[in-house]
C-alpha cells in the first residue's frame, strides 16, 4: 500500500506492506541509518524518531500510521543543530549508538521545558537507554543546550 509523509522536510512516498515498521522503512528505503534497533519492544529508544515533533519508537510504529505525518530523524537536523553541538561539546557519547535518540528526545524536551531540572531531564530521557553509561554527561549536554548555568 502507498504511504505518503514528510521526511526531514521533504515529501516522501513509499509502497509498503501494512506490517512494515517505520524503523525498517527509514533504514532500508531511505538509508537513514541513524535510526537503529536494539530491543524491538519500544523500551530502549535507539529507534526514536520525531512524528509531528513528538518522540515515537519507530520499531513498533506501523508505517501506514505515518500517513500525512511529518517525520524527523537526526539526519534532518543538519549536523550543527544546537542540541547536536551541545552533545559534542559536553562529550555526551561513547559508542554513539543511542545518541540520535537522545538528541531527538532532548530537542523535544527543550521545546516543552526550556530550562529543565535534572529530574525533568531524567523523566524525559529515562526511556532512552545508554549501555556505555553516558547519563551524567548527557545531562550536562541538555543543560548546555538549554543555556542553563549549572545543573
Amino acid at each position, binding site marked *: 500500500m502507498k504511504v505518503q509523509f514528510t521526511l526531514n522536510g521533504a515529501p516522501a512516498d513509499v509502497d509498503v506492506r501494512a506490517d512494515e515498521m517505520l524503523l525498517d522503512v527509514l533504514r532500508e528505503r531511505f538509508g537513514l541509518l541513524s535510526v537503529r534497533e536494539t530491543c524491538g*519492544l519500544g523500551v530502549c529508544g535507539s529507534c526514536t524518531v520525531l512524528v509531528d515533533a513528538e518522540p515515537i519508537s519507530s520499531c513498533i510504529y506501523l508505517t501506514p500510521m505515518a500517513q500525512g505525518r511529518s517525520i524527523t530523524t*537526526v539526519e534532518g537536523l543538519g549536523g550543527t543543530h544546537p542540541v547536536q553541538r551541545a552533545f559534542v561539546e559536553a*562529550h555526551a557519547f561513547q*559508542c554513539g*549508538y543511542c545518541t540520535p535518540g537522545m538528541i531527538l528526545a532532548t530537542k523535544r524536551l527543550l521545546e516543552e521545558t526550556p530550562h529543565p531540572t535534572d529530574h525533568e531531564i531524567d523523566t524525559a530521557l529515562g526511556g532512552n537507554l545508554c549501555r556505555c553509561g553516558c547519563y551524567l554527561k*548527557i545531562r550536562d549536554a541538555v543543560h548546555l543546550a538549554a543555556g542553563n548555568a549549572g545543573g
Partner: protein
Amino acid sequence: MSDPTRSSDTMSDPRADGSIRYSQDMEMEGMWHARILRSPYAHARIRRIDTSAVPEGVVVLTRDDIRDLNRYGCQIRDESVLAMDEVMFVGAPVVAVAAATRRAADEALPLIDVDYDELPAVFTEMEAIAPGAPLVHPRHYISENDAAYFGMRPIDGTNICHRFRIRHGDVDRAFAECDVVVEEVFTTDSAAHVPMEPHASLARWHEGRLEVWSGTQTPFNNRMDLAGIFGLQPEQVRIVCPPMGGSFGAKTFVRTEAIAAALARKTGRPVKVVLDRAEEWQTMNRHPATLWMKIGAMRDGTLVAKHVACWANTGAHADSGPGVAQKMGYASPGPYRIPNVWVDSHCVYTNTPPNGAYRGYGQMQCIWASERLMDMLARRLDMDPYTLRMKNILREGDTYCTGEIMHDVAFEECLRRSAEAIGYHTSDDHAGKGVCVLMKGMQTPSRASIAIEAEDDGTFTIRCATIEMGQGARPAIRQMAAELLGVPMERVTYPDPDTDLVPYDTRTTSSRSTHVMSRALVEAVRDLEKNGKRGVGEVTDKGGLDPDTGQGIASSHWHQGAAGAVVDVDVETGKLHVRHVHASIYAGKVVRRAAAELQNEGSIIMGLGTALFENITFDGGQVTNANLSDYNIPSFHDMPRITHDLVEREGAQVYGLGETALPPIPAAIGNALAASGIHMTALPMTAERVLASIDGGGTVDEARRREMRDIVEAGLHRSEKS
C-alpha cells in the same frame, strides 16, 4: 573509511550527526542475509534434519556442508561452526540460512524440521562437578590460538576444562596459628553485556581469500581461528573492524564470523549475519561463579592465611573461560600482604549458553567475595574495616602471593580518597556506608605493535589493530601520536583496523590498549624519524603464571582502585536506595580527560546494574528473560550521586581504566549493608534477597556453609589428583 571517532574538538561528530557506520550497517553489492535456527534443548542428539520445505532462493547450511571444517575455540577447541552430532545448550546454532532479504531468511526457519533425542544436562557449576554428573564434553583439546596464552590444565573425564592454582606458604598450618578465622560462600549470577548494537559480521570469499568485516575486539585471534576452521594460512584471511555500538567483551573471538563465512562459501556471495536481540542471550554471557573463601588473622588484624576455592560456570563452550577462571583466581587474594595463600580456581562446563569475556573479566566475581569477606573479618575482630585494610594493604616493593614485586602502587591513596569522599568516618559504626579496594590484572604476556605512515600531504596514518567500541582508545592513540609527532590532532588519521594493513596486536581487551600503545608509539615515532616514511613500534610484555603453583608474573601492569557507597534500605521491602557511590581509580597519566571520565562513569553505572538487579534467569538451561523488558539495564532515574577520582602521578605511565571502576561497586554496596547488619552473599542484591537476609536477622546460613564446605573439599580432592 575515515576515522569515525575523530576529535570532539570540532563542531560536529559522526556520532551526533548520525553518520557513523557500525558493523551492522555494512553493505556490499550482491549481499545476502543470514538467520540461524537454534536448538530448543540444553543437551540432545540430533537425529534428523529435514530442510526439504525450504523454498528456492534460500540457501541452507547444515552439518553436512561443514564436515570438512575444523573445530575451533580460542582456548579449548570445543566449538564447531554448527552443531554436528549433539547440541549442548539451548540456542546452539543447528542450521543457518541465507537469502536475498532478511524477511525471506526469517520465513525459511519455521519450515526446517529437526528431530532431537534429549540427553541429560547440567546447569550450574556445582551440579557439573558433582560425582556422576553428565559430561558436556568427553575430552578437552587445548587450542593453538594465541589466546591460549597460559598453561591450560583441563581435567579429562570431568566438566573442568581448566584449573589454576596458587600455592604460597602453608594455609593449613597457618590457619591453626590464627586468632580468628572467617569463612563464607559467595555466588554471582550470570549477566548480559547488552551492547546496544547486536553482533554483526559480513563475510565474502575473494580471489581465494576469506574477508570478514566484523564488529570484534579480537581481529588477530579471529583471523587465526577462521584460518584454522577453513584450513587456510592466516595470511589468506583478512579481518576489517568497523566501529561497534558497544561490546563490553561480548564481541570477542569467533561469534558470527564462521557461519557468515560458511554461508558465503556455499552461496558464492557476501553474506551478512546480524543477530536478533533475543539471540544475544544465546551467544555469550558473563560467568556465574561460586566462591568459597576462608581467611585467618591475628588479634591485631595482621592477615596470616587465605584459602580460596572458586568455580566459574563457562557454559557449553570454554571460549575465554579458562582465562576468566585464572584471573578470578589470581586476583582473589586481594591487594594485601598475606604470607599463606592457596587458591584453586576452576572453569566448569554446563549445558547453558557460552560465557566469556565481560567487563571486569572474572575480577568482579572474586572482588565481591574477597572484599565482603574482609568486612566480615573486621566485624569478627571488632575492627574498623578501613583500618583492617590499611594495615595489610600492598605497598611499593611488596611481594604479592604470586611472587611478583608490586611497583607503582596506589591502593592506599585510592582507598583513602574513596573513604573520604563518602564520609566513611563521620560515624564510628559506618551505618549505611561501605568501602572496597581492588586490584585487577592486565593481559600478560602480550604483544602490541603500531605503525605510523607519513603521507605526502603532511598527514600521518596510524596502522593499529586497536578497535573502537566507544571506549575512546582510538582518539587517545591519535592524540598521543600527534603529541609525539608535534602536529595537530587533525593531521593524524586512524582508519578502521584491517589485518592486511596493521601489525600484530594481542587484542583490544583487558583495558590494555591505551597503555600498551602509548609505549609502542614512542618506539614507532623514533623509528619513523629514522625512516621518514613508515615507523613501527613494538612492545612485548613477558610474564605469566605457572598454572600449578601460581608463581610468576600475573600482570605486567596492575589496575588499581577503590570505591565507597552510601546506601539506604527500605527494610519492609528490601529495596535499596543507593545515595552516593564514589570510585577512585589510578590513572597514572590521563590522556583525554572527558573520555577517561566517561569510562569511569560507564563502569560505575554498569557496576550498579550488576550490584542491584542485573541477572539472567534460567529454567532448565533456557534463558527466561531474553529481552530488554524482562532484563533491565540502568537508566537515568537509577543514577545515585556519582563521583570519582582519576588519580595521577608525576612521571607515571598511562593506566588503562576501561573496567576498573566496575568490580568495586557491588562490594562497596554489600559492605554498606553489612555495616547496617544485613549480610549479603549473592549477587545481585535484589530486593527479595535483601528482605530474606533481613528476615533471617542477618545470620548466616550455617547449613549452606557446611554443604558448600563438603562440596569444596570433595571438589578439591578430585582436582588435586590431576
